[in-house]
């Protein structure tokens, strides 16, 4: 019937950002026949456009810009000889059986059908839009997501606007506030609906305070007005339930609105395979090797869970590659029994979702609300660490050893407890 180009692989990595690159490098190092697919015309993903530092502190023990960080991986790729294709768009994934998946890829040379034992899905996240956060009013030009604004500025050298209001004080919003300020734009305000900033403390200081940019906590942009271009936004104070408090409305004149209202794992292709999704993360449910509910399909990076640091993303990519290796060697991930990871007090999300207890595990968790002077505990294994403060913006990392985990019988629970609980 068709003469589509067909190839066989051990691992097909979908998405050429830091998670995918790290996964492809590791898988190739482990001797697996691997190919990395990227739909942009360059590899690198989001760090390519991140001219700010803060990358690599954890992984390289150095403070690098996003561009420097990702170039380290390009060098490794080259050294190891990782096979990759850019401008390659995954049309669909077919799950044929336990050991065979097909990735259909649209390229300028035609459609490729890649047969693979495993898939590592690392397509990253997408940004929430104006409409998802319920802003009403006009829909003029001058509204950008933070990522789009960053692409314009730092890849193409185009300044989106001059008088800017930023919605959301996550790291992305904070960094973009500074980025605009550095170009001479006036950042009128960063608006945050929560009573605390959404980003890392270091970014609040370095990106806002150092530039005298006002941060309005417990405030929301409720509407945008403008005929051709944005002219102003209406801001309102919100109560604990995020409901606007009548009578507190005020306007801010601006020509640009930047939406930095959070990211969502981009899981479209996986959703079509009816994969199990965790509503708390918005990403797939996974085991400790980051395998999803579909055997042999792994996920890493922001497609799994929105991470604080690219360093974590890279670790996840490597972990998934190791998972792929184990999957291929054992025709599946060996485990006597899968034990759920439960979310206890003040834990909003935790990765992974289930563990075998037969391997050491790194658990990443996020709290629901900020607290001071607490213990993070896993009672089933006797894990307990003291934290001066926990904040939703900062992931908690728990390294649990194989030995410790052997104590857990049915499940493990992550919880946060105040000192005098």
């Amino acid at each position, binding site marked *: 019937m068709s003469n589509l180009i067909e190839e066989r692989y051990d691992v097909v990595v979908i998405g050429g950002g830091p998670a995918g690159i790290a996964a492809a490098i590791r898988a190739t190092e482990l001797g697996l026949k691997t190919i990395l697919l990227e739909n942009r015309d360059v590899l690198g993903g989001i760090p390519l456009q991140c001219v700010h530092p803060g990358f690599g502190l954890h992984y390289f023990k150095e403070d690098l810009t996003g561009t420097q960080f990702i170039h380290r991986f390009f060098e490794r790729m080259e050294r190891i000889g990782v096979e990759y294709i850019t401008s390659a768009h995954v049309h669909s994934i077919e799950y044929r059986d336990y050991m065979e998946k097909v990735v259909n890829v649209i*390229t300028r040379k035609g*459609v490729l059908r890649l047969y693979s034992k495993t898939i590592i899905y690392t397509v990253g996240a997408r940004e929430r839009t104006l409409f998802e956060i319920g802003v009403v009013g006009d829909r*003029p*030009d*001058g509204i*950008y997501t933070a990522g*789009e604004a960053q692409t314009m500025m730092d890849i193409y*050298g185009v300044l989106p606007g001059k008088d800017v209001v930023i919605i959301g004080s996550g790291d992305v919003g904070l960094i973009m506030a500074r980025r605009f300020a550095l170009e001479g734009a006036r950042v009128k305000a960063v608006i945050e609906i929560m009573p605390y900033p959404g980003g890392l403390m270091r970014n609040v200081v370095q990106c806002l305070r150092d530039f005298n940019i006002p941060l309005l906590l417990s405030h929301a942009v409720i509407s945008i007005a403008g005929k051709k271009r944005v002219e102003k936004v209406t801001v309102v104070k919100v109560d604990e339930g995020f409901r606007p408090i009548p009578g507190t409305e005020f306007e801010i004149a601006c020509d640009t609105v930047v939406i930095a209202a959070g990211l969502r794992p981009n899981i479209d292709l996986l959703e079509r395979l009816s994969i199990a999704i965790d509503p708390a993360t918005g990403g797939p449910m996974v085991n400790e090797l980051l395998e999803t509910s579909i055997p042999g399909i792994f996920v890493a990076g922001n497609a799994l869970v929105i991470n604080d640091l690219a360093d974590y993303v890279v670790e996840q990519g490597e972990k998934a590659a190791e998972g792929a290796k184990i999957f291929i060697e054992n025709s599946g991930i060996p485990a006597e029994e899968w034990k759920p990871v439960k979310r206890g007090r003040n834990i909003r999300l935790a990765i992974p979702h289930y563990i075998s207890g037969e391997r050491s595990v790194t658990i990443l968790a996020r709290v629901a609300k900020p607290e001071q002077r607490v213990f993070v505990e896993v009672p089933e294994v006797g894990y307990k660490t003291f934290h001066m403060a926990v904040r939703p913006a900062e992931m908690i990392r728990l390294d649990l050893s194989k030995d410790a985990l052997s104590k857990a019988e049915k499940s493990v629970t992550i919880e946060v407890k105040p000192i005098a609980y």
Partner: protein
Amino acid sequence: MHRYRVAIVGAGIIGASIARILSMYENIDVSLIEKEPDVGWGVSKANTAIIHPGHEEDPKSYPLRARLCREGNELWREWVRELDIPAKWPGELMVFTSVEEEKAAEKYIEFAKVNKVPGVRVVYREELRALEPTVNPDALGAVYAPTAGMISPMEAVIAIVENAVENGVKLFTETEVFNVRVSANRVIGVDTNRGFIEADIVINAAGLYADKISNVVSVDTWFFIKPRRGEYLLFDEDVDIKPTRILHTVPTLVTKGVYVVTTVHGNLMIGPTAEDLPVDAKEATSTTREGLEYLWREAGKILKVLPLRSRVIRTFAGLRPEPPNGQWLIKAYDSPWGFVNVAGTRSPGLTAAPAIALHVLEQMKSVFDLRLVKKEKWNPFRKDIVRVRNRSIEEIDRLVETNPDYGEILCYCRMVSKAEVIEAIKRMKAIGVKTITVDGIKFRTYAGMGKCQGSFCRWRVALLVSKYTGVPLESVVVKRSSYGVGDVKLLLRVRTAKGQG
């Protein structure tokens, strides 16, 4: 300067349809004049996209609306085939949830009889649920009208204009008519921001502004248009709840009902609200919190399950041109000779558009001595842009073989290729669009219409516009303003120089 036989003011669905009909004739050359950078950006852009069956039009109060609605419904079936316009014909269900609503719904069965709308009948619970499993199980029944259809209104305008231009119509964009010139009680043309356009006949199809144009020639001076705002919720194409049939609530005195539909592009859509605005609020397309909340409540009456709020990908509002007493003003005048009003064509204006165009021609024939001569070579056909989306991988492979640009996907959400964007730019230039906008490309290719709303593809599209038009990236127009304000490095250099000075 060229003297046109006919100048049509407004390239919306009505103006475009009239242009297409007139383009069939040898001795009628037509200029189609639009104030916006592109066609269809007014009333045609934001509406419910329904091709109504005609059973909702009261034949006593609105005989013209009733007749042209039914005729338009039939004509569209032909037009969408000839012009390759995305359309479907799922039929509609006017869902009633109480005995009072059932009573109110019964009158439409009567209207259907008088208006000769085929197949309209009441269906009760079991059949209703069989026809539409997503419907609220508490609903008592519905008026089923099998001839209802849906189209993509923007693409319809684009297709019709492409076809009309192919057949000799001249499109002027970014050309705003501010006066209709009359001499010796005859229309002689229109004054625009781009100068005088000479024409023997001026057809006013200016949508929301049709009252202003009509008033310049002082005909039917009682006439005015009140914008009626309709807000909508549009959902991600991946939501589970997607009715096969068109669902809507029973119309009341105030509203035509809220519709719950799956668009021709596969998105769940809920709307509209109905809010009467002052005569001069002709650009008031803001959405409101109250309006959107109302839609959620109304949709809850007819749907079994509502989708998650987080799956809304866009909210928008459109304005309908509401004339006094809901009466369309379609008339050819002999004083001043040569003026034609096609004004206040509120719902079912979209449905009736092809029939309105034919009706306008009849009016013109009876008042003006047109002596029409049919063109020997009139091309009724227009092909849509060839798209990657919804094709099998084998088909896509063959497309890529013909043009590698089909193998480069720019919009991930909607799977739109570079080839499609380039084709859209070519077609915009071909019809005479002066400013190639990112929005214009969106309407032609769907790039940016998915869940990310363009955050991944807008700059890619803008780059192509820049490449194919020579406009610097920062100056590419998105909708009505530029993508950026300048080159980062240039701006910096200017500031540094100033600082040193």
